[in-house]
């Protein structure tokens, strides 16, 4: 009688252990499937140092001679920057181009 009780409790331990293993494996498989869905190469975050499109706009901004038009372009570019439409650092790029232009003028 005592032997039978011992055998039952031992079997229960193994069943619980098996269930824990299966649950853990299920969680791992679910995590792997979630991770696989995030395999997207985001250009904005991968290549944030240079933005050719933004640079084109900045070059044209500095090339405009009419200051009224220049102001309007800047307002638009600033708005685009606030809306995070640029992939690069707008402020540092504008400073960099300004510095290079002033250096060339001297």
């Amino acid at each position, binding site marked *: 009688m005592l032997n039978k009780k011992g055998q039952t409790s031992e079997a229960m331990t*193994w069943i619980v252990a*098996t269930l824990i*293993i*299966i649950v853990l*494996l299920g969680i*791992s*498989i679910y995590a*792997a*499937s979630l*991770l*696989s*869905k995030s*395999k*997207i*190469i*985001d*250009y*904005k975050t*991968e*290549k944030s140092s240079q933005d*050719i*499109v*933004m640079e*084109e*706009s*900045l*070059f*044209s*901004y*500095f*090339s*405009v*001679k*009419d200051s009224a*038009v220049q102001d*309007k*372009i800047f*307002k*638009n*570019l600033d708005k*685009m920057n606030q809306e995070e*439409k640029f*992939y690069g650092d707008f402020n540092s790029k504008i400073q960099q181009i300004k510095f290079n232009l002033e250096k060339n003028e001297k």
Partner: protein
Amino acid sequence: MIIKNKLGAEKILSIYWFAILVIIAGAVVAMVSLFYGTPYDVRDAEANIMINQVSNCLSENGKLNQELFNEDKNFNEDYNLKEKCNLIFETEFKNEREEYFLEVDFYDLNNSPNGVSSGVKIFSISEGNLNLYADCKIENEKYKKLSKCIDREFYSLDSSDNVFKIKITSVVRKTEKNAK
């Protein structure tokens, strides 16, 4: 009797361990195949690279390419975007349809009724499969995987210093290769 019983228990236990081993191995295989079986979605990068290529080809240092204009200083209707910008739309797929679409819209900001911000669309060039453009308009989350659409805008000047806003729309389908 006791020895016989012990032998039986050991046999059952080894079968159990073998079953557990098979389950764990199966789960590891499932995890690896799930993760590595899903392709990287590079369409966003591809669409952006295409925009960079086109913007670089249409405008250099903030000035529009002179080939865009004809002798009368109007936009050249015969401008071949694909050829001039070295774009290759052929893919390894043997599909009849093209997997790319590109549209470039030119907005005149000098003669705009609402000022520089909006502009009037005066010229447009497009290349590739126009049907893909419809995928960009779909809001349904289920169908968002169909094509990747990227819109970008920049400013450029012509030879007379007239300002133009150029909007490039780049669409890449290639769903089979990039999304599951």
